[in-house]
């Protein structure tokens, strides 16, 4: 099918052909032709954000909660540069995004024209791929390719930069074709021999452990379903990274909780002591491995990943399997069923007994108080009182994010949206906007820090405009708590600029944004206030005043091994000061 139309019309047509229902954007001179087309139709809904960073985070939330590609439309120059943080965030967390940027007309490119920037140059290192379209007849092909690249293989953000003259120019539009891409065709099926070897190793294991990550979520709900099947078939314990929460139900007895820097005692000790590590869709990131030369020293490592370059990047593995998680999991299930392996039941029993001893350490315990709300308690209550609702959680970055990961239990994939790789403060609020757009009747909560949320607070205005009843649940400790915690660990408790004086009155701020403000200061008021928040069908800012000095434990201090964790209930000031060695201090 080939039709003549303008470049701007092609953009809308391509989005329609790709099944896009919502885009997040902000207009400007270099995208006006596309905005003009938008105004003349009502199939595609445009959400007007308040900052282009917010547009990308909203598209990320939309993408991560639906499995679809998130779409962004911004103008040239400052529109594009404002989007860079979001694009980098999406790259680090492998979120499929197509971001269309306007550009100055082709004849002005390179002339330092008004609102010109080298968008493809700036975004080259923070996208999976990008394009500058200089021929209107190439536009439709490029747009369809952009969607293909964004969602295929390891997903990621793709930028399509369209000069304004190309938006006006007329050319041939070509629809979707199913021709193969000439160079980019990631393999999805794992090598059968490697899968067989993996099953062989699993059958003999005495202390096995599944270590899974965001790749399972990216692969789609089928991958989570198959993961559950395989894990239950084997009876092995399972842990996951921050990005993978929800792929396996937290209520399952085989679940050990999250691993890594703020992971559970049982998960980290199991990582350290296992004899077989089955890594699926995770990437041995430094938050996970801790001290790399002491990382799981005695284990044989299997690594399933769609991205070949993730394998042997940080940790040398014994059995790599390149492929899509859902496909490889299916192959593993089939191979397991065919082999009907005889497991070393006695050894596995000993292993589980060891794990149960670690569990009994009760590593997430904290001292509850009657006079102030402990942040952990706030999240526990939020979790308890939202049962029975259709809940999606986003977060900002800091202690509250880690507490959310520890205390909010996820049973399903795509329910947990957080900035893992980049750690972007300001991610949660716009992300919640995107999630709520995709799931208008669900309960969407941003578990926030008072510092982070101010970075993208203006998106409250977006929420108000589109009647998006998002809930901003601020764990307000008046500190950049995570920074303060590190200053205690590294810098003798000298709190250099980690206290925010002159915070706004969040209740009034909510009202100023046409939302509802709620405050809780005492544990006794908390439950009613949370119930009220859930009841209100408007955007809510919940100012939850918590203990200002609580720290997030357990913690593997940077530069330490998994079996050297700091625990919350018995840590002393002296432990904290001595926890990080001189060499560990240079790490972030």
């Amino acid at each position, binding site marked *: 099918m080939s039709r003549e139309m303008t470049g701007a019309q092609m953009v809308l047509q391509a989005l329609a052909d790709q099944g896009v229902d919502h885009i997040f954007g902000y207009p400007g001179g270099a995208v006006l032709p596309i905005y003009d087309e938008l105004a003349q139709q009502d199939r595609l809904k445009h959400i007007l954000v308040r900052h282009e960073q917010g547009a990308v985070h909203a598209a990320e939330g939309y993408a991560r909660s639906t499995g679809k590609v998130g779409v962004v439309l911004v103008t040239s120059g400052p529109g594009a540069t404002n989007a860079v943080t979001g694009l980098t965030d999406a790259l680090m967390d492998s979120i499929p995004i197509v971001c269309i940027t306007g550009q100055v007309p082709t004849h002005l490119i390179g002339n330092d024209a008004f609102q010109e920037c080298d968008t493809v140059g700036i975004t080259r*290192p923070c996208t999976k791929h990008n394009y500058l379209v200089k021929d209107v007849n190439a536009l439709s092909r490029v747009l369809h390719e952009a969607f293909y690249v964004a969602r295929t293989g390891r997903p990621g953000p793709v930028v399509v930069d369209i000069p304004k003259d190309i938006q006006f120019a007329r050319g041939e539009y070509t629809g979707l074709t199913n021709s193969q891409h000439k160079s980019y065709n990631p393999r999805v099926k794992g090598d059968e021999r490697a899968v067989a070897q993996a099953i062989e190793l699993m059958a003999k294991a005495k202390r096995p452990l599944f270590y899974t990550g965001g790749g399972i979520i990216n692969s789609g709900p089928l991958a989570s379903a198959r993961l559950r099947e395989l894990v239950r078939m084997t009876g092995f314990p399972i842990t996951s990274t921050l990005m993978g929460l929800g792929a396996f139900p937290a209520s399952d007895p085989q679940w050990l909780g999250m691993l890594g820097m703020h992971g559970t005692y049982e998960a980290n000790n199991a990582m350290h002591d296992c004899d077989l590590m089955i890594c699926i869709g995770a990437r041995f990131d430094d938050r996970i491995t801790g001290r*790399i030369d002491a990382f799981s020293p005695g284990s044989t490592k299997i690594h399933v990943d769609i991205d070949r*370059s993730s394998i*042997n990047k940080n940790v040398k593995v014994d059995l790599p399997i390149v492929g899509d998680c859902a496909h490889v999991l299916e192959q593993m299930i089939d191979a397991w069923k065919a082999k009907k392996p005889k497991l070393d039941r006695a050894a596995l029993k000993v292993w589980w007994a060891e794990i149960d001893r670690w569990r009994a350490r009760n590593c997430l315990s904290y001292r509850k108080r009657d006079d102030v709300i402990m942040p952990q308690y706030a999240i526990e209550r939020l979790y308890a009182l939202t049962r029975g609702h259709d809940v999606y959680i986003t977060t900002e970055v800091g202690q509250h994010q880690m507490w959310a990961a520890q205390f909010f239990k996820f049973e399903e994939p795509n329910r947990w949206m957080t900035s893992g790789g980049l750690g972007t403060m300001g991610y949660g609020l716009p992300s919640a906007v995107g999630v709520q757009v995709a799931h208008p009747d669900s309960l969407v909560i941003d578990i926030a820090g008072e510092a982070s949320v101010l970075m993208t607070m203006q998106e409250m205005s977006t929420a108000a405009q589109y009647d998006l009843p998002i809930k901003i649940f601020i764990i307000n400790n008046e500190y950049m708590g995570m920074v303060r915690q590190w200053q205690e660990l590294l810098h003798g408790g000298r709190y250099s600029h980690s206290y925010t004086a002159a915070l706004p009155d969040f209740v009034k701020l909510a009202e100023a944004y046409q939302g509802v403000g709620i405050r809780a200061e005492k544990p006794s008021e908390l439950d009613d206030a949370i119930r009220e928040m859930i009841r209100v069908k408007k955007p809510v800012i919940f100012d939850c005043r918590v203990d200002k000095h609580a720290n997030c434990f357990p913690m593997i201090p*940077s530069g330490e091994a998994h079996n050297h964790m700091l625990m919350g209930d018995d840590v002393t000031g002296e432990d904290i000061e001595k926890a990080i*060695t001189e060499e560990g201090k*240079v790490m972030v």
Partner: protein
Amino acid sequence: MAQPGSAYPLEKKEQRPETHTMTVLVDNEPGVLARVIGLFAGRGYNIESLTVSETEHEAHLSRITVVTSGPPMVIEQIQHQLERLIPVHAVTDLTVKGNPLERELAMIKVAGKGEKRVEALRLAEAFRADVIDSSTGHFIFQVTGEQSKIEEFIALMQPLGLVEVARTGLAAISRGPERM
């Protein structure tokens, strides 16, 4: 707790660095070289030599030959990171395939008179370098071969009035009848 260390900046590099020659087959489209070079710069990989030219005009394919060095784990990373770039069709580590043919071309300008000039010409013959430009006061030699030969020739020209050198960088191809 002895021997702290870890996460990326502190990793003790026990692996010895190796030098590898890779060829990268890419779509000849704007920005593709920037992607390849940006990858090396952004991830801190070394480029010792890099050449690029369109080698298949019909298919618009260019061939990049890059010489890089690093510990084995990094070399493996470089190959897989290159493969991840969308316009990249194929990456071959010629060093791993074994003993590739590697050649470079250099143009070497030498100025001088009398005894030195005679000596330069005599050496050029020994190296099978061609004179591609000359006057009574200078020669420009063209020499091709392995890098070591070119290095050696340049070193010999140094005392004989070496003015400047232009080099193409290394082109490489695997031995035998197969395609990369």
